[in-house]
């Protein structure tokens, strides 16, 4: 294989997917930062009177505002998983074909064991990434349910009260809070690994993984596209 590698560009991530991705990233960043502050507010030793400040209230307000954005952005992505292109479809996230499981094994070999392997077939998400994202979707859901469940107690609006059932189910607000707080770490650790792996794949495969979430294009080996147009 010392001949040339010719790449073709493929439009993988449609605009709604890209928008979703970056809104989501922003929301998670803001929610994790404000959430962390809610759990661990600064120690201020000052002689202020309460009426002079509202910073903690503002932090919470930002958390709640971004929580709504996060949730509806997520709902939109669920919808787009039905109407988007083949890379955006739900089938990518829920493994249901033999090849998908085989590919998961292959990815593990390439990424973790780093044994020499044929390059990955996948153009969009590889199957392992797909399942991982599916798990994150479940965590998004969990975080939204627990978040709005807690929020129901401080709101008169009908929307958060749709989630109030989670509180007795988990044994009271204290439990909901601890789990909601713990899950923040899932987001942080996920983000660390996610960003690293994007850089890793970009570096090792040279397919433009990093920029694909910007412009939507990936660069795929020409032979690969000719051999396998269905994947």
């Amino acid at each position: 294989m010392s001949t040339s590698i010719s790449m073709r560009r493929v439009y993988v991530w449609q605009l709604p997917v890209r928008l979703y991705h970056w809104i989501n990233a922003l929301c998670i960043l803001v929610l994790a930062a404000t959430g962390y502050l809610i759990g661990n507010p600064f120690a201020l030793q000052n002689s202020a009177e309460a009426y002079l400040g509202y910073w903690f209230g503002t932090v919470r307000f930002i958390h709640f505002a971004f929580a709504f954005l996060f949730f509806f952005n997520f709902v939109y992505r669920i919808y787009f998983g039905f109407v988007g292109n083949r890379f955006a479809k739900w089938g990518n996230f829920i493994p249901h074909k033999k090849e998908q499981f085989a590919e998961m094994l292959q990815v593990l070999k390439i990424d973790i064991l780093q044994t020499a392997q044929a390059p990955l077939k996948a153009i969009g998400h590889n199957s392992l990434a797909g399942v991982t994202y599916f798990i994150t979707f479940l965590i998004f859901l969990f975080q939204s349910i627990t978040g709005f469940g807690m929020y129901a107690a401080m709101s008169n609006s009908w929307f958060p009260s749709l989630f109030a059932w989670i509180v007795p189910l988990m044994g009271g607000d204290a439990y909901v809070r601890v789990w909601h707080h713990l899950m923040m770490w899932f987001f942080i650790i996920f983000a660390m690994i996610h960003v690293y792996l994007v850089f890793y794949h970009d570096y090792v495969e040279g397919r433009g993984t990093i920029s694909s979430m910007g412009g939507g294009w990936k660069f795929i080996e020409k032979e690969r596209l000719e051999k396998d147009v269905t994947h």
Partner: protein
Amino acid sequence: MSEHLPTMWEEIRARGYSRRDFLKFCAWTAAFLGLESSGIGQIVHAMETKTRLPVIWLHGQECTCCSESFIRTSHPIVGDIILDHISLDYTETLQAASGFQAEKCLHDTMTKYKGKYILCFEGSIPTGNDGVYCCIAGKTMESILEETAADAKAIIAWGNCATYGCIQAAKPNPTEAKPVQKLISGKPIINVPGCPPIAEVMAGTILYMLTFDRIPALDGQGRPKTFYSRRVHDTCYRRPNYDAGLFVETFDDENAKKGYCLYKVGCRGPVTYNSCAIMKWNNGVSYPIQSGHGCLGCSELNFWDNGPFYQHLASFPGFGIESTADDIGIAIGVATATGIAAHAVSTNIRKRKLVKKEVDVSRIKNIEKEGGNQDA
């Protein structure tokens, strides 16, 4: 039966209370129940026309703090009328009768008012070792509860014990203590949690049932909505400090003296549903937060196990006593970062050839002309 049962108003009058006292009492009750002003008239009417419902008050595994709280309600009529009569029907700690006589009282009440009496239950019920940990007259508490609950009109579960099991049910729960709602089904159960519940909450709940002869509006966990629909935090007078981010850091700091919010020293107000901040305790004198101590969350499930009390979040179940979610998160985060660093190094060793080859190739040959794309 021809026996004339006096109405509640008649009983109150017989005790020497004036009409004025009686009306004040009705207004007091209506206020605590959160009724609109027309509710006062309804209470007056109910008291004038209805006979008092019979009450059986049982004590399981408990410390009697619920009863202690109840006898301190701020209105004397509650104690004089309700308690005196309860003690006539049956209650272990206050009744004059003892031994066989007491048992007879219980059975008389149960047969005479079959399906009409209210069963108040204070304490939890041990179920381990066939229930030997709490027996009265040779019967286990569980069987006594089942027997009395069978013909009760409704059950009031007093306190955290009867609602959630409280300290007896805290880990490791040696007596396998259970609350009423885990053992009885098919009867209306009104949960009045708290350790103890506020006197006025207890009085309000029972007076509502006695006067209106119906169950107060309950939330999803069977608690009277009037008293348990708001968090302590939502009505706390230190709340402006919370919103302004002014927190007590330690109990002996300057901020504590200034009365800042107790959130960071473990206040459970944000996760606790109760009326302490509104009704307060001991005739409205104070409540824990007002005296400088955070809320312990005594009206919530498993509050004893959600410690340490002086830390914002409970320690995480299954990990060390003081490990918070953050400690666990940081540990996993550090492990992840280490893993990533190791992986990056090994990538450059093991995939070096592959990457180098591709770099070389791309240097020599230009990438072929772009193809079309498939989806656009």
